[in-house]
């Protein structure tokens, strides 16, 4: 434990071993269970996963981030699990998972899980605690349709604007395809964002996206074109 390595950020990183990991996990679970009503997830066989009730989530994340004992200042990922048709699963259909670790001590890493019911899939947003959570929560909403209450800008992140549904849900048809008829509008949001950040936009560039009339032809023209090619050859 006395050996340290300096990270890119100039902080000292204490390397981990099996003993220090075990010690951290015991300590973290003890606090999470006593203060935040956390329960142990037996499915995690390699690390520590604590299932928290949704109302306690923000409090727990804030504690883990700020407490001098933990200093878990890195939110690696926010994602979700759809347990539909999962063998032997009787709890709520979804779970949102937060992967946290510390940049000071390699032993400190844990996973928080919040169960989310199918009827109203919603968990509190932590975008103000970790800036990166903004996009991670957007991605999770995009792919799983889980609403992050209090999120300032819950838009799709990966899928296109005309996409219907949430493709990583297990009941999304695997072979379903959805066409996008136009480019995603990028210029207008960018101009708005520049203005909101205090920049003066002298001349807003005109949108470069094809018109609706143009894109309505998209399927039809290509098929005609293809037929012509076939006739010629």
């Amino acid at each position, binding site marked *: 434990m006395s050996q340290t390595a300096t990270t890119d950020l100039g902080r000292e990183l204490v390397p981990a071993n099996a003993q220090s990991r075990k010690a951290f996990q015991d300590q973290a679970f003890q606090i999470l269970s006593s203060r935040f009503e956390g329960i142990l997830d037996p499915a995690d066989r390699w690390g520590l996963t604590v299932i928290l009730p949704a109302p306690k989530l923000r409090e727990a994340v804030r504690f883990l981030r700020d407490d001098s004992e933990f200093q878990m200042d890195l939110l690696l990922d926010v994602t979700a699990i759809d347990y539909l048709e999962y063998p032997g699963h009787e709890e709520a259909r979804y779970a949102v998972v937060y992967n946290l670790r510390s940049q000071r001590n390699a032993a400190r890493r844990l996973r928080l899980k919040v169960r989310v019911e199918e009827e109203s899939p919603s968990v509190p947003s932590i975008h103000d605690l970790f800036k990166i959570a903004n996009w991670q929560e957007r991605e999770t909403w995009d792919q799983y349709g889980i609403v992050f209450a209090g999120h300032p800008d819950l838009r799709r992140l990966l899928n*296109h604007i005309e996409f219907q549904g949430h493709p990583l849900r297990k009941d999304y048809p*695997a072979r*379903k*395809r959805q066409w996008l008829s*136009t480019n995603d509008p990028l210029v207008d949001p960018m101009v708005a964002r520049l203005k909101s950040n205090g920049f003066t936009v002298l001349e807003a560039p005109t949108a470069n996206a094809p018109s609706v009339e143009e894109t309505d032809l998209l399927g039809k023209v*290509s098929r005609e074109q293809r037929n012509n090619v076939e006739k010629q050859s």
Partner: protein
Amino acid sequence: MGEGAKAAPQTTSIPLTQQPPVAALHQDAGLNQSMVTTSIDALIGWGRKNSLWPFTFGTACCAIEFMALAASKYDLARFGAEFMRFSPRQSDLLIVAGTITYKQAPILRRIWEQMMEPRWVISVGACASTGGFYDCYCTLPGIDEIVPVDVYIAGCPPRPEAYIEALLQLQDKIQDSSYMKDRAAANHQRIQVG
């Protein structure tokens, strides 16, 4: 030399040794060696196939292989197609190298529409041709859903030799196409519309 002068009037009576060398060569060669007869179709096809200007729409590892092709070892310049233009308006060969998602599809289609005719499309690799192993909600199952493809290349990614083979096949296709027929069809259409 009297009858010989009638049969071949372009020859002169001045002995060759007394003439300037260049003039002698020119006169000696005659029309049959300084002219070629051909059809306009063959000539235009020859010109087109040897001066392709590719536009690379590279989105994945196929584009890395394309870089190898353009570099000195495989040297696309040998086939007259070395002049990459990253403006669709200046190019006539669209090389789609990589996975195309539904989000990118309108962009690809628009780039193809911006290209001058005649234009050709090469679909490179499994992803561009069929979607590859991305059999999922976000990936286009082959770019021939949105643009007409002239040559497909198999492989994941294909080797530069496969690119060269595709380019040679495309050159054959361009040589076989008829400029005069296309022009006649366009004129016919214009007359009907007018």
